[in-house]
């Protein structure tokens, strides 16, 4: 197994750092999957009753000027590592103004990702700061856990309202209830609702817009535009996810509702595709862990089923 990559461009470095900062806010450990074309950060939702899962895909050429990978074997030309994203963020923090950053898979006392940042210096001799970040190599037999979940047919896909408003509302709702229902339709309307013995609160967002989807997923064409698809979410998980989002004008954030809520963030400019799932049903969890085994049709139940 071999991996070496180098970032020479400060803009790419900053972008990579921002992505890692977002991931750090979401989870303490995650899986780093390296392939010839892509770098993935994956968090599979191994939580009992709803939680955040994450899939973040970076097109390697958009970040690295040099990139060499020799995977576990020629048929399985990938490397899977378990890493604490905070360690990577912290290392990148010191590399903010670096002329270049090299990342290598090394073996010190244990397998490590070694980050070497060449820092600008007034003297003719450059300064190099090296970080050794311990990682765990994930054996091949566990790799099926980290394949990209295929998109189920979803009922509604909608752009999220301004994060600031959504965060304020979700923060207040968290004081009032543990669970929140997200509803959306193809008319650009989204509602956030809570209901307890003491109080019921519904926030109505309008004119949000529904993104057109041309890729793998098939948006149900026969769907009535006004009908709401809904999903029930643990508010703390939603809050955790919203806190991790950094505002970036190039990003478009949208939610797809089928049986689970997925918020997808695609940076159209530089090819970062990241998908965060907030799953709520036990059924969902099984599906995410053993991706590919379930047919989409068996999972998809009519969205109008009352919760």
């Amino acid at each position, binding site marked *: 197994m071999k991996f070496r990559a180098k970032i020479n461009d400060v803009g790419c470095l900053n972008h990579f750092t921002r992505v890692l900062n977002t991931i750090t806010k979401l989870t303490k450990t995650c899986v780093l999957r390296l392939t010839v074309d892509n770098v993935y950060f994956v968090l599979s939702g191994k939580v009992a009753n709803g939680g955040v899962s994450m899939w973040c895909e970076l097109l390697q050429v958009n970040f690295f000027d040099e990139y060499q990978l020799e995977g576990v074997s020629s048929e399985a030309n990938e490397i899977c590592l378990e890493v604490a994203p905070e360690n990577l963020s912290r290392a990148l923090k010191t590399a903010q103004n670096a002329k270049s950053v090299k990342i290598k898979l090394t073996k010190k006392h244990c397998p490590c990702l070694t980050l070497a940042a060449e820092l600008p210096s007034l003297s003719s001799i450059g300064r190099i700061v090296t970080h050794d970040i311990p990682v765990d190599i994930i054996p091949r037999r566990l790799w099926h856990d980290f394949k990209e979940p295929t998109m189920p047919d979803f009922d509604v896909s909608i752009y999220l309202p301004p994060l600031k408003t959504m965060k304020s*509302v979700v923060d207040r709702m968290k*004081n009032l209830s543990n669970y929140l229902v997200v509803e959306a339709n193809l008319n650009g309307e989204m509602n956030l609702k809570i209901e307890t013995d003491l109080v019921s609160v519904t926030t109505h967002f309008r004119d949000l817009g529904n993104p057109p989807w041309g890729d793998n997923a098939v948006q149900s064409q026969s769907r009535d535009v006004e009908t709401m698809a809904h999903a029930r979410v643990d508010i703390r998980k939603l809050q955790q996810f919203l806190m991790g989002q950094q505002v970036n004008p190039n990003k478009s954030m949208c939610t797809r509702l089928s049986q689970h809520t997925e918020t997808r963030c695609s940076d159209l400019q530089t090819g970062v595709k990241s998908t965060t799932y907030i799953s709520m049903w036990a059924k969902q969890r099984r599906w995410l862990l053993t991706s590919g085994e379930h047919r989409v049709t068996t999972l998809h139940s009519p969205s109008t089923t009352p919760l």
Partner: protein
Amino acid sequence: MPLSTQSQSGNDEYILVASLDNARNLSNILKAISFKDHAIFNVTQNGLKVTIEDSKCLQANAFIQADIFQEFTLKEDVVGFQVNLTVLLDCLTIFGGSTVPGVNTALRMCYNGYGYPLTLFLEEGGVVTVCKINTQEPEELIDFDFCSTNVTNKVILQSDSLKEAFSELDMTSEVLQLTMSPSHPYFRLSTFGNSGNAHYDYPKDSDMMELFQCTKTQTNRYKMSLLKPSTKALALSCKVSVRTDGRGFLSLQYLVRNDDGQICFVEYYCCPDEEVESNE
């Protein structure tokens, strides 16, 4: 605007409809008395009175007159109900506590009568939130029987001076002692804590003293834990009136200006601490 379309259809059903262009004109003043969950609303043609009580010894009232509201319609003489104030405040501030100038949350508060929830319609930037808060039968309020004819001592102070004193008060003291007298020390706050005794004196001719009417020397002690919440009201106010009556009951009245410069009042009544009697 969503709120106005609601009013056309819903207006006939509600016995109370009160609207504000800026919900902070209600939420800020309610925060000044929000030290307990249950608040009793008493609504008359004059406006809103919201009351919170603590251990039968303390009562806080916030008054928001009818003319503060952009719309105030009451179909009965008196309407009373009890709600959870913490929940109400979370709803009133649903869009966050932002103080960006020009950006306000508009509020329409509606009530249909006994057994119905308190319904709030809040709007900011085109986003509408509807809250329905369950109400209960209002508990009976204590009548402190504090009337102006029994007032023995009264001062009106500018709040700034008291704010400083209250922020420095020794919280290890179980009581706050108040001495009011036509002679020295005129107006004195005292604490008896672990660090020792502390006294704050305000002479009657001080700049901060707007009115000084003390007829009799009185010293009374009040539980610090009961008076501590009043600092929220003090922080919002520009003036405060301090009065005691023959029994040693304390009335604090705070003059509060809202975002639009309109005046509202907050009042605290407190019983003297019975454990120690001292009339120096």
